[in-house]
């Protein structure tokens, strides 16, 4: 069985939004900094007020690596992990879709792909942006 995120934990609004094909992140009600995973206080201004707000699922690939050693049952190797920085500033680890690993490059613009993997879990993956260049 592949590893699954806890979609009913404190980050539930994030996972529920992915289910509907959108990305929602926690945003500080005082300074506006977006953050993920969930935290009670803003790490920038320490305010306790926040809201979940929709963000554009677009960003760039900052770096990547290819797993050859298996660590999880249900994930067959090799597979590629990318580090993405969304335009709103939040960073995520994810997997690329629709692109050969050999074609990846640092700074590559990407957009979100919503991949249903169980009846309850949708993962946010990324493909190269078609509206770019």
């Amino acid at each position, binding site marked *: 069985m592949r590893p699954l*995120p806890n979609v009913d934990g404190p980050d539930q609004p994030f996972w529920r939004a992915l289910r509907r094909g959108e990305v929602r992140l926690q945003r500080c009600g005082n300074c506006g900094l977006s953050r993920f995973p969930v935290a009670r206080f803003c*790490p920038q201004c320490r305010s306790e007020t926040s809201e979940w707000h929709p963000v554009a699922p677009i960003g760039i690939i900052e770096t990547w690596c290819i797993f*050859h050693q298996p*660590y999880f049952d249900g994930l067959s190797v090799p*597979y590629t992990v990318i580090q993405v920085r969304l335009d709103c500033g939040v*960073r995520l680890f*994810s997997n690329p879709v629709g692109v050969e690993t050999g074609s990846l490059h640092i700074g590559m613009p990407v957009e979100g792909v919503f991949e249903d993997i169980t009846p309850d879990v949708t993962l946010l*993956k990324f493909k190269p942006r078609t509206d770019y260049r």
Partner: protein
Amino acid sequence: MARPGSVAVVGVGHTRYGKLPEYDAYELGLWALKEALADSGLRFEDIDGLIVNRIPDYQRFCEIAGLNPSYVSTTPGQGRFSGICIETAAALIRDRLATIVALVYGNNGRSGGDRYGGAGDTYGSGGGGQWFAYGMTSPGAFHALMARRHMDLYGTTADQLGAVAKTFRDHAALNPSAVMRTPFTLTDYHASRYICEPLHLLDYCLINDGGVALILTSGERARDLAQRPVHVRGCGMATALAPSTFPPDDFWREPMRKAAAMSFRAARASHDDISALMIYDNFTPTVLLSLEGFGYCGEGESGPFAAEGHLALGARYPANTSGGHLSESYMQGWALNLEAVLQIRGSCGARQVKDCAFAHYMAAAPVVTSIIYGRDPS
């Protein structure tokens, strides 16, 4: 003449390294402590400060070792803590909270079945469970991400990473205590399997059992003991913890620059004075990043610097002369500090660096530490 406030290492000890399934972490630590006390000429009763590392509980350790020190604490089993413990011990001694401080490390990770990746992974900020669904896990992958970016930005190559691994293995071949002593070629390096590309098996540290202990005291007290003291001439520390779930944009360059400057200033020494480098080598890329951050080469120049051979015994900056974590023993910084002491004592035999007056221990991580050891007190 020791100047007031000076601190010295007066005893070092270690266990055998390898598979030691009959010992737990407490027992490995106690074995190493017995060796370190014997080395120093001190007795268990003389210890009035104790910091245990990776050993889970100071109380249990004191019970089995028969110790009642004035000061105790327990620190987590992360490699960055060896430097933190040594710097803390120096501060305790300077502030006279303790006179004879024992630092004790025990690691039974090999026999205990520790895995660095997968469902039990706790590396990083709060553990990586958030990202397991995408397959992201392990400190090795975190460093593979940094290596890939360094390659893209500066043209660093796998051959250059391989040169680091090969150099340290060549050093281990001269060290009877090292776990892995058979030299390999760059062809062997490329043939070793990928764990997390771009990193091969030979870019990764070992996982083995063992223990290390160090005894520190004041410069004044050090004069009467069994060994010629090795002085802790300068310490520096800096962090990059907020945020630290993702690799740092600057490869930890800024905290390394700060920690290095702090330690060189305190040591009243410069890079030109350093004879040997002890570089925290959990993975080969960390060695390259450290050379840049601690100022031994320019930004982006570490790959060619390593490949040109400057880290080999006989060259300008022999590094990890014991073989380091990659080939000697995964003692999370402790055995590298021990090696720095042995080099300055001049007791390293076939791997001795000629006229080693200063050795520099450095660790690149979210907590950066920098320690300069010297033969002379000031």
